[in-house]
């Protein structure tokens, strides 16, 4: 037996498509030297439904339900991005109440989405209990959504010209009660995780994303803010009525998984603040402006982006004056954020790779569309 035969070798492993920590169907081809990951190549497209092609064959208002399916954890935000873009394309003025309702729903959905992230991230690190704690609060939000639009996952709530339904009477007391207990629940998560030495060891210095790399790969959302970039489209290019609310943009310093965790936890508090301001200032009046099914925007194109829970979500719609879009490009945050994984994930243990994947908050239908 020669020395060459005894040499340790890199092991090629398919992590996914069926793997508990790839958050959907993503395949990571990784090369491992012992426990250390030396090379990562993501394979996506397992969920490709060609929503952009579908868009070319649907009327504008008909397309809203499809946007739900782009990001099933934050359907409201995906709705919001689409309707804002479409309204900008057709210069549709919408009632103020609709704007407020949209903001309330979008921010609630941001909270729900971050809670799902928190849940899955902690479960990636092996802690199961915070998972259910986070889902407990998400349940309250889903109850609010169900009360409003009858759906718990894909809401189809926002329409071009407003929102589909007004909120019922019992919505506001329930929301206020939720807002009252929610900060203490965030404190619960922090008690469980923030000061836990194992959690600290698993996240500090893991998957450091430098600012420059984040720029190059167009990383957006909390993952970018974790690297210390104060960039939030709600502040930088205010859409809807976000300029009316007072909230902070939390940022990190090092750009590691810990910073991304802290930023998201802080965003939970900020979003709750926005929701509180919005429900306080909710005006009366109409909640929707009638837009016909065969709505025809003028010829032209529009590019509009919003801050979704995972980062920048943008719609580039090109209209040729017919009721159907000529071309619709959907830019999603996870698509760009996932690209950075092979850069920041190498030379880490496989357990860290899972943590980094989790901390980036990738959602695969958003990547594949």
């Amino acid at each position, binding site marked *: 037996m020669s020395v060459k035969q005894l040499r340790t070798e890199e*092991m090629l*492993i398919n992590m996914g498509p069926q*793997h*508990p*920590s790839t958050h959907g169907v993503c395949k990571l081809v990784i090369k*491992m030297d012992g*426990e250390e990951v030396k090379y990562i190549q993501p394979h996506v497209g397992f969920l490709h439904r060609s929503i952009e092609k579908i868009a070319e064959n649907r009327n504008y208002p008909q397309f809203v339900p499809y946007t739900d399916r782009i990001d099933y954890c934050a359907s409201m935000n995906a709705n919001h991005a689409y309707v804002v873009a479409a309204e900008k394309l057709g210069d549709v003025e919408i009632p103020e109440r609709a704007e407020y309702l949209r903001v309330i729903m979008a921010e609630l959905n941001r909270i729900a989405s971050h809670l799902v992230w928190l849940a899955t991230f*902690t*479960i*990636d*690190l*092996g*802690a*199961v*209990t915070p*998972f*259910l*704690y986070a889902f*407990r609060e998400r349940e309250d939000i889903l109850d609010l959504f169900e009360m409003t639009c009858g759906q718990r996952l894909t809401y189809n709530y926002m329409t071009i010209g407003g929102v589909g339904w007004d909120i019922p009477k019992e919505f506001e007391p329930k929301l206020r009660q939720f807002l009252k207990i929610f900060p203490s629940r965030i404190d619960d998560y922090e008690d*469980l*995780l923030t000061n*836990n030495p*194992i*959690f600290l*060891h*698993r996240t500090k210095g893991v998957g450091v994303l430098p600012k420059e790399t984040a720029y190059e790969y167009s990383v957006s959302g909390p993952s970018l803010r974790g690297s210390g970039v104060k960039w939030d489209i709600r502040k930088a290019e205010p859409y809807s009525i976000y300029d009316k609310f007072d909230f902070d943009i939390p940022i990190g310093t090092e750009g590691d998984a810990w910073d991304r965790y802290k930023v998201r936890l802080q965003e939970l508090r900020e979003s709750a603040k926005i929701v509180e301001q919005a429900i306080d200032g909710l005006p009366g009046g109409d909640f929707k402006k009638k837009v016909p099914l065969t709505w025809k925007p003028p010829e032209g194109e529009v590019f509009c982006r919003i801050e979704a829970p995972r980062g920048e979500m943008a719609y580039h719609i090109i209209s040729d004056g017919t009721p159907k879009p000529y071309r619709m490009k959907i830019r999603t945050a996870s698509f760009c954020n996932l690209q950075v994984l092979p850069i920041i994930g190498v030379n880490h*243990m*496989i*357990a*860290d790779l*899972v943590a980094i994947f989790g901390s980036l908050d990738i959602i695969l239908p958003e990547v594949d569309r």
Partner: protein
Amino acid sequence: MLELRPIFDAIGEFLNSILPEFWVTIVSAFGTGAIILGVASVFVLFFVWWERKVSAHMQQRYGPMRTGWHGWLQTIADGVKLLQKEDLIPRDADKLVYLFAPVVCFVAAFLAYVTIPFGEGLIVQDLNIGILYIIAITTFTVVSLLMAGWASHNKWSLLGGMRSAAQIISYEVPLSLSLIGVIMIAETLSMVSIVVQQEGWFWNWYVFRQPLGFIVYYIAATAEANRTPFDIPEAEQELVAGYNVEYSGMKWAMFFFAEYINMLTISAIAVTLFFGGWHAPAPFLDFIPSWIWFVGKCLLSVFVLMWFRWTYPRVRVDQLMAFAWKFMLPLAFVNIILTGFGIYLF
């Protein structure tokens, strides 16, 4: 009063009166084996249900509620399901090793019960080397995990097997050393003698003379039993399920069974060596049978292990190693030195 010893003595006398000596040995060996198997199985069934309930209540949910009162039949229902499941063997698996791995794991988990005193006089064989025997025999578990990891012909399994080997070898050292303090004070390796020395009030328990030793033991034992936060060999989120990823049906159940048995084993050792074994915390509580005290203490310890599992995240494999060699091992040595000074001074 409700002590079980007289019952077993009566059975022994009865056997002696009707059978020759050779057959008495055989029958009693198989009989005790069957009793231990039965009792341990009941414990495992209970633990599985209990862990579900404990985790559920820690996570603000109910856990199983439908099968039986508060779901107590759930584990049995699961067992029936597992029995019916198709028994898959991967095509490229090393069949013989693959088949034997769960058996070795199962047997190794039970072998430790030879020297555990469940109550006053309730011990299969009070070996002179009691503790050493248990430490030695539990290493067979790691052999089985290696066999499973290697034979499954799956890279995740292989990684899990390697991790478990590295982990258990590392934690074996502080585990063994942490018990030396107790052995030094007790001046014996026999489990029964150690328990007898802790008679009386609860401050006679060795945990009050060996707090450091107990802490090191308990952490190392958690790691030996592959419980969170040290469950890296199976780490569902990283290695899918580690060494048992390819196992299904009853083979998988045997690994599962062994894990819960090991949980009881490490609790029983902790109770025997540090918490006075079958003794009541105060002499006036002696009217309660000894085996109830022992089982009660074990259950409390198992509950603490479950509490760990449902609270902590999992550590990383290199952190696990560093913790074993850089923290636990020195602590175990410090404990031995302190114990030595203590014995010299008092």
